[in-house]
């Protein structure tokens, strides 16, 4: 009996990872979000922008190049990072509760945050394993930026979760809104620009300065996987914010529709900020995020104590 339950649970997890809302569903979503962001930025700049199928064509073109033959263990490690990035981003998307009552387990928020963090870590590691000066500089910048925005990101999510006394995403999605939640969502949106390498925090892929940053030595299908991981990161990060924003009420078809609408609005907002700003240097970005973290930490602490009744 327990064996069949375990089997069905694992097939259920596999379906969530690979089909819905996992890879099969998330990959076209990723392409759609990447296209939406590029088109929105282009329209804001009075340009036409890429056609609808553009991210798909980019992916197919990159996959059609030859897989580079790299020698030895260092070559194998270099080829490993894009695979890990795609796998962890797909896992992060798989954990999102797109439909109501889609299960989940206690503590899956922590797993989601860990999986969401992996693509940035893979980028940093990939730059260092590339044996290229430009890649190393890009990795250093990405690492510093990651540390600075993660303080705000994790603080916001943990304070939201702690105020609900639950680390289960499903519970967070179904609970009622509060001022602390909206504050947390605002803080997360500020961090998303850094996480998704958009202006003003697009430091790690600064072209013409450090060639292509950490990905300078990657080519062909490896680059296709990196772009795919980036797209899946878009889906997972915006999906997480949409989960926190969209209430689970009404008929069964309403929450997914609102989910999609919320994601589209978040993408437009991020594109708006990206089109309006220029790239900030590393010291300015770190200073910005540290001030953000300080302010938010103070507010979160005070409100957590207040809600907890200690104040």
């Amino acid at each position, binding site marked *: 009996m327990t064996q069949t339950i375990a089997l069905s649970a694992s097939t259920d997890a596999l379906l969530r990872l690979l089909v819905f809302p996992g890879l099969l569903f998330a990959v076209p979503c990723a392409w759609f979000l990447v296209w939406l962001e*590029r088109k929105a930025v*282009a329209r804001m*700049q*009075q*340009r*036409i*922008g*890429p*056609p609808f*199928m*553009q991210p*798909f*064509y*980019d*992916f*197919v*073109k990159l996959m*059609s*190049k*030859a*897989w*580079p*033959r*790299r020698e030895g263990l260092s070559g194998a490690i270099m080829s490993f990072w894009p695979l890990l990035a795609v796998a962890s981003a797909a896992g992060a998307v798989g954990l999102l509760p797109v439909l109501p009552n889609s299960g989940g387990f206690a503590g899956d928020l922590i797993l989601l945050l860990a999986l969401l963090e992996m693509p940035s870590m893979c980028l940093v590691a990939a730059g260092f394993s590339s044996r290229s000066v*430009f890649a190393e500089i890009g990795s250093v910048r990405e690492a510093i930026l990651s540390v600075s925005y993660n303080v705000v990101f994790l603080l916001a999510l943990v304070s939201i979760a702690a105020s609900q006394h639950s680390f289960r995403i499903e519970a967070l999605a179904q609970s009622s809104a509060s001022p602390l939640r909206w504050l947390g969502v605002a803080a997360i949106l500020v961090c998303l620009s850094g996480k998704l390498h958009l202006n003003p925090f697009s430091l790690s*892929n600064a*072209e*013409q300065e*450090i*060639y*292509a*940053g950490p*990905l*300078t*030595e*990657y*080519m*062909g299908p490896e*680059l296709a996987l990196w772009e795919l991981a980036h797209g899946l990161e878009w889906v997972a990060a915006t999906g997480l914010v949409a989960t926190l924003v969209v209430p689970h009420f009404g008929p069964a078809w309403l929450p997914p529709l609102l989910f999609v609408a919320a994601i589209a609005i978040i993408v437009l907002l991020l594109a708006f900020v990206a089109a309006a700003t220029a790239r900030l240097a590393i010291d300015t970005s770190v200073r910005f995020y540290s001030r953000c973290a300080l302010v938010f930490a103070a507010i979160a602490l005070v409100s957590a104590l207040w809600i907890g009744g200690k104040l």
Partner: protein
Amino acid sequence: MNFFRRLVCTARRRSPWLFHMNSGSCNGCDIELIASLSPRYDAEQLGVQLQGSPRHADILCVSGPVTRNAAGAIETVYKQVPCPKAVIAIGSCPATTNVFIDSPTLDGPLDRHIPVDVFVPGCPPRPDAIIRGIAQAAAIVAERRRTAEGSGCTTEVEA
């Protein structure tokens, strides 16, 4: 199998990623190339993206008459572009060395070093001419195979 072949050809034609290299140019052609990405001409409507690394690009755009110092660099960068690839010579300088025809510091027009597929003449060429050249080069890349002979295409990773 024919379906996949046609899909790959379409994808290569509609997603030309460029890498720009200046081999001693006066920067007039470089400015016009950047202008072709500006809102008035918008090369991105064809899916063009200017990449930061030659390993990410399909099409190498070279401007400038090839100076002696730049000749080795051009050949190295050409080998780093993964196959299938194409080369565009932007401006009259890489095609024929233009006014610098008698200069002792030059090493000939571009096709003395790497095979050139599309020439975009002009001094400097207009941005719409550059975009037409990019569209031609994308069509050429679409019909090329991954390990084309004669362009140094192997699956080895060049250092």
